[in-house]
């Protein structure tokens, strides 16, 4: 998939410039957005997902411009899966119902078909035993895996994930990343904000590095890890990789 950003800037009402003139073009299968906390990574992901609008600038996916108008955005969101850092499942629905809701109420599947799809996917990712559990009865890792199942059940053309493992301990992080890797091999396009440098390096073909709302560096992830061009990325990698990956 090709993504193009042209001069994307986001200023929140408190005059803080969260994103400052981000422009790049990349062809990717899995794109990782990395950088220090508070740098605007999540905001960028929400703009790509059509959850918030940029103050100025354009975003193109495979050459199609995203029109930041509610009538268009609702269609845009329906073609995209979005997974939040945590708490993204509907509290009042169990795992199976969470997966079924968008299928039935947004994509027009019958209840029976939606249930079949939900059960098949939950089974595939080892969640069959948990399908009748409510979000607060699931572990953090299970919650995230159900959230990913819900996002991919509607066959999105792109899956966006906002730090999907940052609230999890290492073991649970492993199970979520393994699932993402499997989906990637299925041919699903992924953009994720992550602090998991091992995953960014090995499972993502492209990387963009954002510092203080600016795009500091981007390109092949292999290259960025081995030969960072900017001092900022070199020092960031030094800090996060200090204890190895």
């Amino acid at each position, binding site marked *: 998939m090709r993504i193009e950003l042209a001069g994307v800037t986001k200023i929140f009402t408190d005059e803080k410039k969260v994103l400052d003139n981000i422009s790049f073009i990349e062809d990717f299968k899995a794109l990782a957005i990395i950088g220090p906390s508070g740098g605007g990574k999540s905001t960028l992901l929400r703009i790509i997902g059509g959850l918030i609008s940029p103050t100025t600038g354009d975003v193109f996916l495979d050459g199609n411009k995203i029109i930041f108008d509610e009538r268009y955005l609702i269609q845009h969101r329906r073609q995209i899966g979005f997974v939040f850092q945590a*708490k*993204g499942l509907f*509290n*009042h629905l169990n795992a199976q119902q969470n997966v079924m809701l968008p299928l039935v109420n*947004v994509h027009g599947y019958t209840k029976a078909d939606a249930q079949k799809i939900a059960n098949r996917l939950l089974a595939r990712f080892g969640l069959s035993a948990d399908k009748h559990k409510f979000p607060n009865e699931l572990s953090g890792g299970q919650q995230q895996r159900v959230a990913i199942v819900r996002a991919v059940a509607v066959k999105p053309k792109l899956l966006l994930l906002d730090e999907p493992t940052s609230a999890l301990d290492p073991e649970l992080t492993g199970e979520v990343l393994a699932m993402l890797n499997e989906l990637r091999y299925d041919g699903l396009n992924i953009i994720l904000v992550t602090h998991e440098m091992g995953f960014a390096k090995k499972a993502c073909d492209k990387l963009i590095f954002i510092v203080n709302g600016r795009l500091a560096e981007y390109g092949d992830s292999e290259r960025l890890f081995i030969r960072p061009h900017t001092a900022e990325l070199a020092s960031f990698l030094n800090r996060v990789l200090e204890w190895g990956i």
Partner: protein
Amino acid sequence: MALYRVFIKGTNDKITLLQKFLNIVIAVALFLLFFFFSAKRLSINFDFSFLWTFRYRLIQGFATTVELSLVSLILSLLLGFLSAMANNSRILAISYFSKVYVQFFRGTPMIMQIYLFFYIVGTAWGVDNRFLAGVLILSLFEGAYIAEIIRGGIDSIEPTQLEAAKAVGLEAGQTLRLVVLPQIIKRTLPALAGQFASIIKDSSLLSLISVIELTQTIREISASNFAIFESYIFLGLLYLSLTFPISMYTRYLEGKFSYEN
């Protein structure tokens, strides 16, 4: 197992059904004994036989209380919901009107509201049906409490729930119907059931404007035969027969929806 274990709960102990039953009997017995000895000190001899004579009036009064409470429940739910919605209105006058309403009815005694609305507002606008006036006043009073319960329910919806609804592609109306309302209902139902018990008890104050409900019936009966103690003990039991099942149901709902946290 030592005998004292039946009466003392350890930190991690589960209470058995037998334990529960035994200790409830003890607690209720203690409670009743206190009243029994209080009556004994005054050498009162209770005689409840007169109640049978007044059975039709009592049934009539009981029915009126139930009717009054049910109609007020529906009306106050409606008022509470509207007020909670109005509270979040972007039109400031409407928002403040809702706040003033809630403050006034929660902040003043119901007895004052009853007199104010029945004798001034009611008379001015020609509402002379006491039952209707009673229902309206009670609903206004309880609606203010219900507005706060519903507002709390709305506030408790986490922002991520709305963002997730947006992300999966739900429209605004669908988000309200499929995500927001079910969560508000689940979270407020226990408190609303509890409020219904309050409505039943508070309806007794309408005896002040001579709505012939249960309390007024008892007042009239005890005024004719001076069996004040027996009358009011029986009155308490009748109200308990209504509020106790509701209280049990509230407990059940609280347990059922505790997973929501």
